[in-house]
């Protein structure tokens, strides 16, 4: 999986949001709020380029004190939301 072109993480008074700014995302029109974990994962996914549930879950375990099962279920939920919003492919 990878992030679609043109989606940018922005800080709005401390809240993290994803907006469509690039040419491929001009007509997105929506705005997606991310909690701290999701924002961290978005950045990690950008660093990884090509990513998966497993690659992000293991990154999450390295950074935060969280069990592998919990990490995997959190990542799965967040990725499902991103897929639903069509900001990853």
């Amino acid at each position, binding site marked *: 999986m990878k992030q679609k072109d043109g989606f940018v993480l922005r*800080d*709005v*008074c401390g*809240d993290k*949001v994803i907006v469509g*700014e690039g*040419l491929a995302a001009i007509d997105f029109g929506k*705005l997606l709020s991310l909690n701290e974990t999701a924002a961290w994962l978005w950045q990690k996914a950008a660093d990884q380029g090509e990513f998966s549930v497993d690659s992000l879950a293991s990154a999450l375990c390295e950074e935060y004190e969280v069990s592998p099962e919990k990490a995997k279920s959190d990542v799965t939920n967040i990725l499902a939301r991103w897929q639903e919003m069509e900001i990853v492919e």
Partner: protein
Amino acid sequence: MRRNYYKVGGHSFSVEADEQVLSEMKEYEPFRIAEPPESLFTVTIHVADHLDISYAETVRRAPTESLTAINGEDSEGHDIYEYLWCDRHIFWFVCDKQYRHGELTITGLHVRMTLDIALTHIFRYATLKLQTTVIHASAVSYHDKAYLFLGISGTGKSTHSRLWLEHIEGTELINDDKPILRIMDDGEVRLYGSPWSGKTPCYRNVDYPVGGMVKLNQGPQNRIRRLGKVEAYHVILQSVYGRRWDATVSTPLHELEVKLIERVPIWHLECLPDHEAAKLSWTTVTGEQN
């Protein structure tokens, strides 16, 4: 050729063209000034059927069914803006990277529309670093403050302004389409009238501190609520145009937009086109009672 000077949003600029073209700029007259010590940008207008120009197209849009707008960049980094009506050229607009100077070539089709499109284009980018932007809104003044009504075309921004004018004494229209928002050096947010007012001829050279903004949606009832920061940001994002695919534009725009929502309250009004809707938004944003 003659050169006229104008001041919009507190920023001076000049337009050089022949008399006939300048005579089309009647709605800019309230903004005419004597030659200022400094101009932020200059625009020179030529009339021609053709322009030899080669550039790479970045994006192509269709603002209406018969119009095509093309953004691009040439090999020297000039910003190119080209407009077509059906398959005929309306204009080519070539600006330097810093938006200090624009060369506008017009074919004679839709001259007034061309002048507005080209001048808002260069104004938008030349003033961005000076904490200024063009906002899509209808704006009124009331007791020395400006109130903005936002929303996509057709949601009733102009209608809501008209309802304030009819039912709330002391209200005046500032601009009905594209006023100017500016964050001053002391942090105050001010709204300026502009020569760009859409279908309503209202070209007033006035400015006021902003008291609040209201995003409108048509609905079965009148209901208003204050928006949180993220919702307010989304509203502003939809009301301010800029080529956000270019990070040199999207980043300063984002910073400006965040400052706006930190300083100005933004509300959401679901409304009917009636008297009660105007009273509700008026009492809410001004804090006054019936």
